[in-house]
């Protein structure tokens, strides 16, 4: 099945062409890490306790079991920040003295098959003296709480503080102040493919190849090479097809370090495929935050000052490369959201506990801060007796570029317009009529709005502001036309479901007059691609796409130069389209394939005026751009059971120029489904002793097709100069807005009872607990 052909006068950009990735995937012909055969399998023996001192690790005599004693020369994972009172704490690759969370890998059992490795692991006994754990972020801050790391006696490992000079005066002048606590429980990103790695040592070259399910192959290479003290070029990291990541697969897992060490030690191949229980216990967690939020409003319900105290429970260690600062510092920088508020004060702390370490997860903190801020706006609207729409109208940014109280520059966007589209399309007046009738019949419907900004496509300046030792941001691509006229693009980004092979090909195709199917995007292999930062933070289409545009423009210039020589015409008169260079207004043309052959095989004809070969590079490192959206949820709350049904979900969103509408919609759909899980279902729960109680997918509940209603999407395409392709990022917005809209809808439904739910997920148990004792106030 071929891609549709391009009509005359149209562009590839902006069209819903089918994905180039799909034919292999629908036939089961993809290549995933766990598909590789290995000489050895590893099974990790994990700590059964949340806090303890390892006294002895006993394994059968002569068994192939490796512990921290064997790995003593390997450095701990200890990423650095140079700001925000950061206390570096190290994660031993395999600890041999202290364990700090249930599920922490302590030993690796190695055997010829998975089953035998599991048998061997079962025979390993870890003698541990249990210590008192602390699992709750706020309790870890209290006096007398056990210190998870001796270096951080208060358990605070990162602390951001900001207060605008006008804060006290503005705050004091307020007409109304509203203060509350927003609580977000812990989530696991739950990609359908859990972690897997396969390390193979090559006797001939002395190099090791690690194939693993990562979003960041180059950074994984850097991390492991540094920890093992080996040159980066001795390690090749391949990310083949990756079964989802959502941020979880940005973090360097100690298990991969062990695999590379084992492959080098055994001079052989070693594989590990984690099971779902391991992933839920130790595959990184996110969003465990408490926000004390206070909004100060003037008499017209204009938000004039905002203050927040944020506690992010970052787990036992600081993950590489983003560090444990990623959640608390993102929350602090972006909490004011899309609102014009000039006075801001915030304390945001990252706190270590005896729980699984935190890694970025789709939206990083923004689902939480958006939920908190949007609850604030609804509470304020109620306090002023105005409509939730009206309070947003009065407070949203509407002039651009806008520099926030935190110094972030917001480029052109459509905060007000997307709100108005959403209000119109959802038909709010009709909903209110229906809601009233339902209430009279003892049914409780609610509607909730969330307006938000999504900072996307930001390059190194944004990361440098956090003071990161490893400062990500830019992307480089290499674009080569082979002598047949087909193009290979090697990128440092590392897509894992986003369809980037298709969208990047669309961008390049328009510049050089080829079809997307003639452009092959190569990614996920450190031997084949230029250094890059991988795919996360809604960045790849903007930054890698921008780099592709830059390289493709260079290729275009070269093709025009070649055509100019070969057609004896001025480059200004030549157009590249449908696989050929044509002289406008004539029937003279030459195919791109012919020109490509000439560029390699007939270089003598160009009198030294054209460099041999057909390779161009492009690099892009933008400051960043803001996508935006308004999400609307309508729900019904069953007062007897606390069950919430989402009737309808509507989105008016703006991610600038849309390269492939089908793919952009898919990103929004997927984000919203994860947001629904975040709002209603998904919660990692620890017992007081630090045991994890949600270690299967029967306890930890990602939504099924039953919980995700039909999603109605409306688009705007506001462009700005912040992105050279005019595309803004679209990967995270769905997840950012959905919890806020759903919680506002639940609270709207519960208005007659005078109770408020400011906690996600809003499970039936929590809703019933709030309703117990409340009585309905009949309108």
């Amino acid at each position, binding site marked *: 099945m071929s891609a549709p052909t391009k009509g005359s006068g149209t562009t590839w950009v902006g069209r819903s062409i089918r994905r180039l990735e799909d034919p292999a995937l629908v036939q089961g012909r993809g290549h995933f890490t766990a598909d590789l055969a290995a000489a050895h399998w590893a099974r990790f023996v994990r700590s059964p306790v949340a806090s303890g001192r390892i006294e002895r690790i006993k394994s059968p005599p002569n068994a192939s079991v490796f512990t921290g004693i064997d790995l003593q020369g390997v450095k701990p994972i200890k990423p650095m920040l140079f700001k925000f009172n950061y206390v570096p704490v190290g994660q031993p690759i395999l600890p041999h003295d202290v364990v700090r969370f249930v599920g922490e890998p302590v030993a690796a059992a190695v055997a010829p098959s998975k089953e035998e490795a599991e048998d061997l692991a079962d025979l390993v006994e870890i003698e541990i003296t249990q210590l008192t754990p602390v699992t709750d972020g706020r309790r870890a801050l209290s006096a007398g709480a056990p210190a998870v790391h001796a270096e951080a006696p208060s358990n605070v490992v990162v602390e951001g503080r900001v207060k605008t000079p006008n804060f006290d005066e503005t705050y004091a002048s307020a007409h109304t102040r509203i203060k509350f606590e927003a609580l977000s429980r812990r989530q696991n990103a739950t990609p*359908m493919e859990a972690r897997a790695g396969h390390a193979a040592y090559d006797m001939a070259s002395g190099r090791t190849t690690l194939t693993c399910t990562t979003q960041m192959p180059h950074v994984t290479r850097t991390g492991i090479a540094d920890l093992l003290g080996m040159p980066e070029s001795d390690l090749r990291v391949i990310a083949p097809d990756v079964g989802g990541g959502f941020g979880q697969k940005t973090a360097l897992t100690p298990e991969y370090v062990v695999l590379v060490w084992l492959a080098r030690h055994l001079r052989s191949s070693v594989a590990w495929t984690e099971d*779902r229980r391991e992933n839920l216990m130790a595959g990184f967690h996110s969003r465990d935050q408490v926000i004390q939020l206070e909004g100060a409003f003037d008499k017209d319900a204009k938000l004039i000052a905002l203050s927040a105290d944020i506690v992010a429970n970052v787990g036992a260690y600081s993950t590489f490369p983003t560090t444990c600062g990623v959640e608390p510092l993102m929350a602090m920088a972006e909490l004011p959201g899309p609102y014009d508020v000039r006075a801001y004060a915030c304390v945001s702390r990252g706190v270590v506990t005896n729980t699984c370490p935190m890694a970025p997860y789709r939206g990083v903190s923004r689902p939480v801060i958006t939920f908190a801020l949007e609850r604030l706006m609804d509470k304020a609207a109620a306090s002023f007796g105005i409509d939730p729409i009206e309070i947003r109208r009065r407070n949203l940014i509407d002039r651009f570029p806008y520099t926030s109280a935190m110094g972030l520059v917001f480029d052109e966007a459509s905060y007000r317009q997307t709100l108005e589209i959403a209000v119109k399309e959802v038909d709010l007046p009709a909903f209110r009529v229906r809601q009233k009738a339902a209430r009279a019949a003892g049914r409780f419907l609610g509607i909730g709005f969330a307006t938000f900004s999504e900072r996307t496509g930001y390059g190194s300046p944004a990361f440098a502001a956090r003071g990161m030792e490893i400062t990500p941001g830019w992307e480089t691509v290499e674009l080569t036309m082979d002598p047949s006229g087909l193009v290979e693009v090697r990128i440092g980004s590392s897509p894992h479901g986003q369809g980037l092979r298709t969208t990047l090909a669309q961008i390049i195709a328009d510049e050089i007059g080829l079809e997307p199917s003639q452009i092959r995007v190569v990614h996920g292999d450190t031997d084949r691609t230029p250094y890059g930062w991988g795919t996360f933070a809604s960045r790849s289409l903007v930054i890698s796409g921008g780099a592709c545009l830059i390289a493709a423009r260079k290729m275009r210039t070269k093709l025009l130069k070649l055509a100019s020589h070969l057609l004896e015409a001025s480059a200004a008169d030549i157009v590249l389209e449908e696989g050929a260079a044509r002289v406008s207004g004539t029937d003279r043309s030459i195919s791109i394939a012919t020109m490509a052959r000439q560029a390699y095989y007939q270089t003598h004809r160009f009198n030294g005026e054209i460099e041999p070969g057909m390779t161009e590079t492009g690099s892009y490192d933008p400051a960043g751009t803001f996508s935006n959206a308004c999400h609307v949820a309508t729900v019904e709350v069953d007062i007897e059971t606390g069950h919430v049904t989402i009737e309808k979900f509507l989105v008016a969103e703006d991610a600038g120029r849309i390269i492939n509408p089908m793919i952009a919609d898919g990103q929004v759909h997927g984000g919203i489904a994860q947001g629904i899980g975040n709002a209603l279902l998904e919660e990692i729960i620890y017992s007081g002793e630090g045991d994890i109680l949600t270690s299967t997918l029967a306890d930890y509940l990602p939504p099924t097709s039953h919980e995700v209603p039909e999603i109605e999407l409306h688009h705007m395409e506001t462009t700005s100069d912040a992105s050279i392709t005019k595309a803004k990022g679209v990967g995270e917005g769905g997840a950012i807005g959905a919890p806020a809209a759903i919680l506002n809808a639940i609270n709207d439904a519960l208005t007659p009872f005078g109770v408020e739910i400011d906690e996600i997920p809003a499970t039936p148990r929590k809703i019933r607990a709030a309703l117990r004792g409340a009585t309905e106030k009949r309108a």
Partner: protein
Amino acid sequence: MTGKVDITLNINGRDHAISVEPRRTLADAIRENCGQTGTHIGCEHGICGACTVIVDGDPVRSCLMFAAQAEGVPIRTVESLASGDTLHPLQRAFMEHHGLQCGFCTPGFLMLMTAVLEREPDISDEDILDVLASNLCRCTGYQNIVKAVRAAAAEMRAT
């Protein structure tokens, strides 16, 4: 526990004579002993459905079955869906409607719905939604999977 049993699995019309431990799951046997890696393992406890294959006409979670239990019955995996270069209507519909992103859960959804549509070609749109709730997808929010399956069902009914 390393005693192995000799069994023959018939996968996609081809016999695979293999020697496996009795405890080896059907999913592991299909992937590792028979080399059919299109079937993916997502949870190994029967919730996610990524490993769904068709055993004797029924969609089953191959992680919850031992390989030895599948001896003598026909097993179909995602590799069997296309005939040569001609894709199954479900495969085409998943591409057409963007019913997949990372593609890890996709073989499970395809095999689930292949079995269901063969058994119940006139299944209602509502019942399709119910059946799809058997499997988990983390990328698509199900919107386009639902569209794809409904479109494929309609197309299969029409031909």
